[in-house]
């Protein structure tokens, strides 16, 4: 639906992840929760409508948007050139730092030091790609179903290191205080809000909204609440990924 239709209807359908805490997940009492849910709720308030969440599986996010099943995606979408051909990204509103975590005792500073190691990552995640690109065939990459299994593999000693995002440090600390640390930063990806290509009214509205919450501290508060970190620095532009409709 167009922005006008949504405003007329009074409800916006938001595509979101249903099982990826803390980004977007259905919480223990069965309601949608998480970082994306908070930001999306704020957005709905901004345009004066009610919010209705549609949890989506990773692979269904783009099809659900392009076929009109949802109006907008607050769905932990890392911005990539590939995806930017299918949807319109907004300015970034969240960042994800992919890094290598390993025991403090292990000396490692570059990817070359990882030769012969076993490294765990969640299957098909950004970490998977980043670690695989970095180590090539010099180390064994073990791919697990999710973050919990990956972290458990490190704690159980099934792997010597894991490729993780910014939450891993906190979680490893909670599981085994003082044992693990962040070793190598591979890359940082940025999440944008997804709208349909060419729909300028949506894109403009979202960008204005993001600028506003960045400025008034609301985004920083949500970031702190869910990730325990300060608001990261966002780039002004990313090559081949336009933030606005031209």
């Amino acid at each position, binding site marked *: 639906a167009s922005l006008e239709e949504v405003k007329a209807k009074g409800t916006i359908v938001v595509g979101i992840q249903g099982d990826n805490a803390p980004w977007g997940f259905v919480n223990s009492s069965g309601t949608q929760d998480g970082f994306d849910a908070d930001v999306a709720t704020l957005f709905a308030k901004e345009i004066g409508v009610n919010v209705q969440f549609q949890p989506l599986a990773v*692979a269904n996010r783009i099809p659900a948007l392009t076929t009109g099943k949802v109006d907008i995606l607050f769905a932990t979408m890392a911005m990539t050139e590939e995806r930017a051909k299918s949807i319109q990204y907004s300015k970034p509103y969240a960042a994800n730092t992919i890094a290598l975590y390993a025991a403090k005792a292990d000396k490692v500073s570059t990817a070359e030091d990882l030769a012969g190691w076993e490294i*765990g990552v969640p*299957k*098909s995640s950004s970490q*998977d790609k980043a670690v695989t690109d970095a180590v090539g065939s010099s180390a064994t990459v*073990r*791919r*697990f*179903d999710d973050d919990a*299994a990956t972290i*458990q*593999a490190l704690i*159980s*000693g*099934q792997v010597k290191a894991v490729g993780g995002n910014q939450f891993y440090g906190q979680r490893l600390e909670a599981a085994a205080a003082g044992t693990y640390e962040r070793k190598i930063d591979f890359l940082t990806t940025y999440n944008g809000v997804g709208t349909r290509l060419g729909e300028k009214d949506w894109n403009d509205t979202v960008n204005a909204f993001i600028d506003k919450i960045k400025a008034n501290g609301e985004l920083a508060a949500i970031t702190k609440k869910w990730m325990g970190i300060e608001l990261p620095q966002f780039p002004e532009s990313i090559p081949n990924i336009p933030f606005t409709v031209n």
Partner: protein
Amino acid sequence: MNYQFDFGAVFERAPELLWATLGTFGLAFAGMALALVIGVVGVIGRTSPNKIVRAPVIAFVEIVRNTPFLVQIFYIYFALPLMGIRLNPTATAIIALGINGGAYAIEIIRGGVESIGKGQVEAGYALGLHKADVFRLIVLKPALRAIYPSLTSQFIMLTLTTSVCTSIAAYELTSAAQRIESDTFRSFEVYFLVTGIYLVISTVMMGIFALISRRYFSYPTR
């Protein structure tokens, strides 16, 4: 449906799929061998007159048969290291498959052993054979023959269960499929093709089982 099928990107990864297929075969055969050992040894315990021997075997069988393999393999992979036993995914997968198949094998083989007449056992004793020899030389083969069809279909299932080992990152076909999928985004093509490969694998397995049966159980019965 306006989807354009494109198997090209998937076919490019044929060598990887081939190796992974071998990995699946390897897991399956090793798992079966272990299951058979567990089955045969377990049957001895399961049919023991001593309750203290029998009870843990029964508990083992019931627990394994009434919980999902996914949960079992997860436990073996992540819990054993906490007790100081660290196994790589391949070894873990083989052990998990062996344990799972073994629990079923115990019950199946028990049915076979019980189908062997008491007279056979007594004839063995009367000839002066010891208990172990009677079991090994006289009971086992006819018992296995009696339950061969159920045992092999259980082993086909075990072969197909190797696909679940992807969740501990074992080297096998489903893991390869998921990797290729995440690289090519050709989900349907990948899984369609790999399903076909599994069909070939299970067909080959059945052929092998039939061959074994013809060689090993060729003696005539009435």
